[in-house]
Each structure stands twice: as C-alpha cells, then as structure tokens.
C-alpha cells in the first residue's frame, strides 16, 4: 500500500496524460488534472508556512543566533496575511487602494525589485572575474558577449563608424543573434526535449522513484 499504490498511480496518470493528448474528447482530463494540481499545491502551502513559522518560533524560543530576526519573519508574515485575508475586500484584495495593495507596493515590491537590481552588480563582478580568454571556448564566449554588449547600445555603432554601413557592431550583434545563437539554442532545446522525454518515461515506469520515500 505504501509503495505500490503511488507507483501504480504515477504510471496510470502519466500514461493517461500522454494518451489524452492524442484523443480530443479526453483533452478535458488535462484541464481537470491541472486544476487538481493547483488544489493540492494550495493545501500544501499550509505545510510550508507552518514549517516556516515553527522554525522561527524555535529560533526565538531557544534564543539561537540572530533570534530577533525570527520575530521579524513572523511579524512580516502576519502583517500582510491578516489584512490580505480579512480586511482587503475578499477576492478583490489586490485592487488599487486596499491595505494589501499598499503593503504590496510599499513593502513587498521595493524589496523584490531591489533584490532583482542587485543582479546588476553581481553581473558586473562576475564578468570581471570569470571572463578570461583562457582557451578557445572561453574566448568565443567572451567575444560573443562583448559584441552583444556593445552592439546593443549606440556605442557599438559609434566606435565602428569607420566600417561601411551594414557591417558595424550593431549588425554583428544581429548576425550572432540570428544565426549562431539560434543554432546553439536549438541544439540545447532539442537535447532538453529528449532528456525530458526519457526522464518522464523513467518516472512513469517507476524506475526513478527516490522521491516516493521508503516504507
């Protein structure tokens, strides 16, 4: 029961999904299973959130390192969930003007956008540190990145203005994007398709089942 039922269920559901793709009247199953997935995920988030709260409560209780920040985590969680669930007009909770929207725009969004913007700094230090023309492969990566970075902004055309029109850095960037880049992407994409198909089959056949746990 503990092990066999899940394996049979995975195989059945997986095969049904594949077959349903080719049988139009069965397409509706696809939609329904997706909906069920969302329902399961919606239940599962209680597990995650409970886990998060418990870890932080533990931290505060045991006065572990940085325990005051555990309080911040819990408070942060409550500060947005209580207005979001009870005081923001129910389903229209995310409309402009609700308390939830206010917290979203002034707390959540700046944090998220700034974290995103940190990438600008990290990408700079990564380019400085990692971009070395060590060998042929690294050099190709470097040159392509260089052409793209300069070619995509007006500087690229400006420093190659001595070249005939149509052969400047901007055009080179276009050419790389249109041809070699497309080819590389495509090889990766086709490879992924095959890897995924084989991986999915292993799961459906029950060969890959560590995620199912033991008895």
């Amino acid at each position, binding site marked *: 029961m503990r092990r066999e*039922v*899940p394996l049979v269920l*995975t195989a059945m*559901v*997986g095969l*049904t*999904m594949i077959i349903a*793709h080719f049988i139009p009247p069965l397409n509706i199953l696809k939609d329904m*299973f997706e*909906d*069920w*997935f969302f329902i*399961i995920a919606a*239940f599962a*988030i209680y*597990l995650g959130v409970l886990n*998060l709260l418990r870890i932080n409560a533990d931290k505060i209780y045991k006065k572990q390192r*940085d325990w005051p*920040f555990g309080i*911040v*985590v819990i408070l*942060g969680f409550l*500060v*947005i*969930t209580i207005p*979001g669930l009870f005081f923001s007009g129910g389903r229209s909770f*995310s409309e402009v003007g609700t308390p939830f929207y*206010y*917290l979203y725009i*002034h707390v*959540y*969004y700046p944090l998220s956008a700034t*974290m995103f*913007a940190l990438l600008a700094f990290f*990408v700079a230090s990564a*380019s400085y540190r990692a971009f070395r023309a060590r060998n*042929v*492969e690294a050099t*190709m*990566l470097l040159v*392509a*990145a*260089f*052409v*793209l970075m300069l070619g995509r902004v007006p500087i690229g055309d400006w420093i190659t203005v001595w070249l005939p029109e149509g052969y400047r850095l901007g055009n080179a960037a276009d050419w790389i994007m249109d*041809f070699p*880049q497309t*080819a*590389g992407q*495509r*090889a*990766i994409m*086709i*490879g992924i398709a095959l890897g*995924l*198909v084989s991986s*999915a089959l292993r*799961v459906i056949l029950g060969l890959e089942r560590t*995620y199912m*746990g033991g008895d």
Partner: protein
Amino acid sequence: MSGEVVGVWIGAILTLGIFSFLYKDNPFYKFSEALFVGVSAGYWFVVIFWQYFLPKLVDNLALAYTELVTNGRIDYHWIYLIGGFLGVLMLLRLFPKVGWLSRWSLAFVVGTTAGLQFTRYLQSNGIIQVKGTILPLFVGGNLHTTVGNIVIVVGTFCGLIYFFFSKEHKGAFGGAARVGIWFLMITFGALFGYTVMSRMSLLIGRMYFLFSNWLGLI
C-alpha cells in the same frame, strides 16, 4: 504625512537595506531579509488562498451544490472533490502515523507532470525545432541567408552531437562535438550580453526611484 509619502519612505529605506548587502552582511540587511521572507511568504499565502484555493476548489463545489439543490441534478463539478481529497491527504503529513498517505497526492502530481510535459516538449522543443533547422544550404542571390543557413544547420547538428552520451568524443565525432561546444559557448556569450543589458535596466529603474520618487532630484 500622507500614506503615500510614508510608503515611499518605507520603500526607500528597505531598498537601501537590501543594497547594504553589497558592502557586507549587516543587521540592516538581516532585518530587510527577514522581513522579506515573512512578507513574501504571507503574500503568496494570501494570493494562493484567493486565487487558487477559492476559485478552483470552493467555487466548483459550490456550483455543484447549487445545481443539486436547485435542479436536483448531480453535476460533473463534484469531481473536484477528488482534487480536494488529494489536497487533504497532503495535510495528513502533519500526523506521522498516516503521513505516508500524502505520497498518493505526490504520485498524482508527479505523474501528471511527467505525462503533460512529455508531449509538450517533444512537440515544441523537438519536432518544431528540427523542422526549423531543415533549411536549404544554398539560396540563389542571397549570400547573407546562404551563410546564415549553413551556420544554423552546422551549429545545430554539431551541438546535438555534443549531447550524445553513449559514444566517446573521439575522432571526427569528437571534432564535431567540439564545434558543437563552440556554438554553445557563442550562445552563452550572447545570452550573457543580453542579460547584462537586462540587469542594468533594472538598476536604472531602481536608481530612478531613489532619485526621482524619493529624493525628487530628477
């Protein structure tokens, strides 16, 4: 002070809190980080409740119920009970003795994913991309396209050879795989260049917020 002004100040302070990580880890960052973890977990909790849990489960069952009460008809929407049942099984993990039942829900999720993505990727990433690579290597009177097509066909061909697992990369085969790696590297370089562009744009947006919305300098 109006709520809007307070809001901009909160936003600006938190922005600086995250940026301070660039200097080094510090309590100001730890605070912003902890707040971020709490608030974002709460944000998704609320969103999932209103936009997934309610419409996907409660609404469908309510529909089935109304149909039953008003028309006395057993509607197909009752089938969402199965979804709800699988969800409840998930919660059984909280009780160690019956926790293993949650594997049924996991099995369902994994099976659905495997089945759905099997056909989807084979079609869009496999067949259509192969079809896109079938190009003539000679296009009369158009050198640009001729060269481009050759590059695409050779690049895709060699790139795929690199991914062969059951054949050692030696000889001509190894040579082709090497060319394949070159194409992958050019692709990565191009993607890197594009990403630099994207990330700089984001920072421009944030800087603009600080200088314009907060300080009013621009």
